[in-house]
């Protein structure tokens, strides 16, 4: 409470935060029974791969972009980084297929779907800037091939794939920040609206009300 008697901005922010995301929804202790399926684990597997990507990428970034070329440990971390990216996209695509065939945008979940779709597109850009930041012939080949395609769209005026510093900045700072922010928003939206229920059998999809989604018939354990 401020001196004027009105709630302070911190109190208003807290109230708005709790109202938008009640603690029992942010960290639920049960999940709906229909979540007991392997198809529901690919989202968290994608996040697990992202954690490994960020960790291995941080080590590579701290040691410098040429480190992995001349040390065994550097090569090891580069391989961890590459293969965690492969798994990240592998799991994310299966997650995308699963949610597409579940029509996961039902029941007020369109923002969850869109945040996931945009994360997928931004991740492709993040991976691309990584491939052109390898500082080897592979990177040179990709960059010189890509520049013609990108220049034909006009984007080359401010996104120059032959500029290592620019690509590296995109790869280690700008795009990872966007991906992590979008993934965080995606998780919060999933918590808010609950996990999408399966499509009803033998009838057209009827959007389920978002408020009923989490824990409606709660028997499973929390993810």
């Amino acid at each position, binding site marked *: 409470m401020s001196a004027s008697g009105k709630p302070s901005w911190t109190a208003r922010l807290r109230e708005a935060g709790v109202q938008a995301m009640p603690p029992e929804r942010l960290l639920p202790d049960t999940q709906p*029974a229909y979540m*007991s*399926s*392997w*198809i529901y684990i690919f989202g968290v597997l994608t996040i697990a791969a992202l954690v490994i990507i960020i960790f291995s990428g941080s080590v590579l970034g701290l040691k410098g972009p040429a480190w992995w070329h001349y040390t065994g440990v550097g090569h090891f971390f580069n391989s961890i980084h590459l293969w965690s990216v492969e798994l990240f996209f592998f799991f994310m695509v*299966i997650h995308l297929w*699963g949610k597409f065939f579940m029509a996961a945008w039902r029941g007020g979940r369109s923002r969850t779907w869109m945040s996931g779709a945009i994360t997928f597109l931004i991740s492709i850009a993040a991976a691309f800037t990584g491939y052109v930041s390898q500082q080897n012939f592979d990177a040179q080949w990709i960059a010189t091939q890509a520049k013609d395609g990108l220049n034909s769209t006009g984007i080359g005026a401010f996104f120059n794939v032959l500029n290592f510093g620019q690509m590296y900045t995109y790869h280690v700072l700008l795009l990872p920040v966007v991906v992590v922010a979008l993934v965080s928003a995606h998780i919060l939206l999933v918590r808010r609206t609950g996990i999408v229920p399966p499509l009803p059998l033998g009838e057209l999809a009827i959007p389920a009300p978002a408020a009923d989604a989490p824990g409606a*018939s709660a028997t499973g354990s929390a993810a």
Partner: protein
Amino acid sequence: MSLAAIINLNHPASYVHWGFFQMSVSNLVVIGLMIVVFAVAIALPFPGSRRRRSRS
């Protein structure tokens, strides 16, 4: 023994062509694996799911 010694990787990538469509074999293998994992994830029962269903 490393995996690279078992599979000879010291050659240009193999590609498949169908008309205008062209893709590396390695990319096709990854897509095939994703389809297999997707199908298995749907078909394979989740541990404990039957017990939970019978209880509810």
